[in-house]
């Protein structure tokens, strides 16, 4: 079966799950109902997240790039994830690293940090896209055709970091189905849904990020109750602390360190860290100008060095528990995720913190990719009984607007279940004010300057009126990827403006397209091919969904006329799919979209009515048979329950 699958030239595109990690990245898929990590021809599953730019303009990714890292510290980018979504002047970009950065000349350029490699500037998005491209081709070798992809992100990633990750996916030519939070992915991989119910904590300490998530599993629904963490805390910090110690032992002054030596010290530190997982004492040799030096580190010494780092995770864990309104004793289990949880001291710390031994039967480095593959499978509709599992995630950090005096007004608080929306009304503070500055920020601090700035825009065209009279309504919407869009509307005049909160450094779709074109060998021709494939995949998905619905919900069609319109649009689209022109396929997909719109609304009303009525399908069938929508259904429902003022009801 598996062989046939691989060699079938008409193989259907298959969904994949990607763990784009700080240190290593992996790609997984579901085979025969089980998630598996895809290995390369050397049976290697982990692709080191290292990208090397060579003098001839070639890009080398993975283990080969890692080997070049020590000799070419400037041209080899490691841990690029730590730079995702960060501006040129972000302090995080200046910590113990070995890179050269391009100084920004314009505010536009300052929006993203840019590495200077081989005389050119590359952004973290572009570097990450190189890693994703390698993972994509790894998957293509096994699956022939890759459908959509689920890419995981740390739960604590802010909007800017998420947007950067999604851009990287697009730049790598992936159809990004969903960004999925890493701890949630891990919970899914553990197959907890088989246990039906319970309260779990996921402790995820990776190479450069830390997440903790408290989630409740209730009848197949994973409801994240709270999440917390630090998007700049991980195994890298242990390496840095140890490297610092090694450099001191070598007597190298802080102000006089060749990049090569720093990279070598970091490399040696990482090896010593790994060795200390099994041994109490590790010896290492390090090449310095003038000879080889021997160094030794004991586990006790290492633990003393990393203690403050590990203790920082405890702060986030306690806060997550408090936000979820639960105590550690109430947890049914604790799951360990991320390579850094292999460190014995981390395991002991987690056990002490939560008062129970953590679960670690799955490889902590693979578990996130496995969960991503399962979610991709669910979203592609290929997973059996997919409708029984659902992930309900939350917003990790509060979203707000800067108001007078630089104070933040929170619009959506952290740990709000997504997708989420909220609306707030503001007014003008000066007479005849015709523009309104909006500054969108993310974070928990009270002052806007202490929060992450996501976007600024001005609502223009407000007619002059006295202060306090204009009414400005700002609507925030966060989708299932955790990405924000904002609309602002002046209510007295109806002036409306919408911004995709493409935070600061974010790329426009046109920019992504241009970069894609530049990256492909044959530019335009390849791009057209890719667009045709994408349009077909999307169209086929829509045809399939529509046909399924025609079988299940034909009774909700309003007469033969609506049916005829849909059949016609379907036939037109199917004909276009057989052709080779992407714009026609897209156009006819939109036509089908248009003619099924009203019917789709009625079907959704039925889905709601069914959900409200529970399993008692026969009774609601009669209630909504005429499809008058949920309001009518509810009115009737209320009528039945409250004949005399309504003391009884659905609530009890």
């Amino acid at each position, binding site marked *: 079966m598996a062989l046939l699958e691989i060699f079938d030239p008409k193989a259907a595109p298959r969904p994949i799950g990607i763990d784009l990690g700080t240190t290593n990245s992996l790609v997984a898929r579901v085979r025969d109902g089980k998630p598996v990590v895809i290995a390369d021809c050397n049976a290697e599953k982990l692709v080191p997240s290292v990208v090397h730019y060579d003098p001839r303009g070639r890009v080398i990714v993975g283990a080969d790039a890692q080997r070049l890292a020590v000799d070419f510290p400037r041209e080899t980018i490691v841990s690029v994830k730590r730079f995702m979504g960060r501006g040129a002047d972000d302090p995080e970009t200046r910590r113990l690293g070995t890179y050269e950065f391009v100084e920004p000349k314009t505010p536009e350029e300052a929006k993203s940090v840019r590495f200077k490699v081989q005389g050119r500037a590359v952004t973290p998005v572009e570097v990450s896209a190189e890693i994703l491209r390698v993972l994509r081709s790894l998957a293509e070798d096994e699956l022939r055709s890759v459908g959509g992809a689920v890419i995981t992100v740390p739960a604590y990633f802010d909007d800017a970091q998420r947007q950067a990750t999604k851009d990287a996916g697009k730049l790598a030519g992936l159809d990004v189905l969903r960004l999925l939070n890493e701890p949630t992915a891990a919970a899914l991989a553990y197959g907890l849904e088989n246990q039906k119910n319970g309260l779990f904590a996921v402790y995820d300490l990776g190479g450069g990020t830390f997440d903790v998530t408290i989630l409740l599993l209730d009848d197949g629904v994973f409801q994240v109750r709270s999440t917390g963490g630090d998007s700049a805390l991980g195994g890298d910090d242990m390496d840095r602390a140890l490297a610092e110690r090694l450099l001191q032992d070598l007597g190298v002054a802080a102000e006089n360190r060749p990049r090569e030596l720093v990279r070598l010290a970091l490399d040696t530190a990482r090896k010593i860290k790994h060795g200390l997982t099994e041994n109490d004492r590790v010896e290492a040799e390090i090449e310095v100008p003038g000879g080889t030096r021997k160094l030794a580190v004991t586990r006790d010494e290492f633990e003393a060095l990393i203690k403050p780092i590990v203790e920082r995770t405890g702060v986030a864990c306690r806060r997550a528990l408090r936000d979820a309104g639960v105590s550690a004793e109430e947890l049914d289990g604790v799951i360990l995720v991320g390579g850094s949880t292999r460190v014995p001291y981390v395991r002991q710390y987690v056990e002490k913190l939560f008062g129970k031994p953590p679960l670690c039967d799955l490889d902590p480095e693979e578990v996130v990719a496995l969960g991503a593959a399962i979610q991709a499978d669910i979203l592609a*509709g290929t997973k059996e009984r997919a409708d029984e599992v659902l992930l309900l995630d939350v917003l990790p950090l509060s979203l707000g607007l800067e108001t007078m005096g630089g104070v933040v007004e929170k619009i959506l608080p952290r740990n709000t279940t997504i997708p989420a929306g909220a609306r707030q009304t503001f007014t003008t503070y000066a007479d005849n004010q015709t523009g309104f500055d909006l500054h969108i920020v993310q974070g928990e601090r009270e002052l806007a300057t202490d929060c992450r700035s996501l976007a600024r825009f001005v609502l223009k065209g407000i007619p002059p009126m006295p202060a306090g009279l204009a009414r400005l309504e700002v609507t925030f919407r966060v989708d299932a990827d955790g990405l924000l869009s904002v609309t602002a509307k002046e209510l007295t005049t109806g002036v409306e403006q919408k911004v995709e909160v493409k935070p600061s450094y974010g790329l426009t779709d046109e920019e992504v397209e241009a970069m894609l074109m530049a990256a492909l060998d044959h530019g335009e021709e390849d791009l057209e091919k890719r667009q045709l494939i994408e349009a077909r995949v999307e169209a086929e998905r829509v045809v399939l969904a529509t046909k399924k619905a025609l079988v299940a919900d034909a009774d909700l069609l309003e007469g033969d006329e609506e049916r005829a319109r849909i059949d016609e649009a379907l036939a037109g689209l199917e004909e276009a799919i057989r052709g080779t022109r992407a714009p026609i396929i897209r156009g006819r997909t939109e036509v089908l979209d248009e003619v099924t719109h009203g019917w789709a609304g009625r079907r959704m009303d039925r889905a709601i009515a069914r959900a409200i009525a529970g399993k008692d399908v026969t009774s609601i069938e009669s209630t909504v048979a005429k499809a008058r929508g949920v309001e009518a259904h509810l009115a009737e429902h209320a009528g039945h329950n409250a004949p005399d003022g309504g003391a009884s009801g659905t609530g009890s």
Partner: protein
Amino acid sequence: MIDPFQTLGVEARFDLDPDELARRHRDLSRALHPDRYAGAPAAERRLSLSRAIEVNDAFRVLKDPIRRAEALLRRAGVPVGETAEPKPSPDLLMEMMERREELGDARRRKDLVAVRALTEAIRVREREVLASMGRQFAVSDPDSTKLAVVLPELGELRYLRRFLDEASAIEEELTT
């Protein structure tokens, strides 16, 4: 403003069973979440996103006793919001001021035990107010003139909430 009770299809009452509410939210999410419509035409995906947002928002409102009370009062035509409601009694203001001073003292002394004791005392108080409001709503709803009697309690609840938020922030500060 969309009626959150209607969105979730639950009876409009103050003393909702939290488990029942969570179950309803879960079942509706199962039917409406964008993940369910990942393969659907674009218009359907947009529709599912809007509906899922409405359901999540309604759930957030109904889970929170203050916003739940506001929703019930709005349904009955009673104006809500701090500017529309009667001023809090001087007794309450005085008491809250004293409590806040105690909290500030505890913070300065870095006395976590005292902070927790104050928190617990206010929580007990919160539970009492909630129980009383539940009784008020049960006998008065939806008579808007009678319902106005819950307004002082709603105001009190807001003060207690602010106190608890502050205490929680201080507790966090002292434990880190």
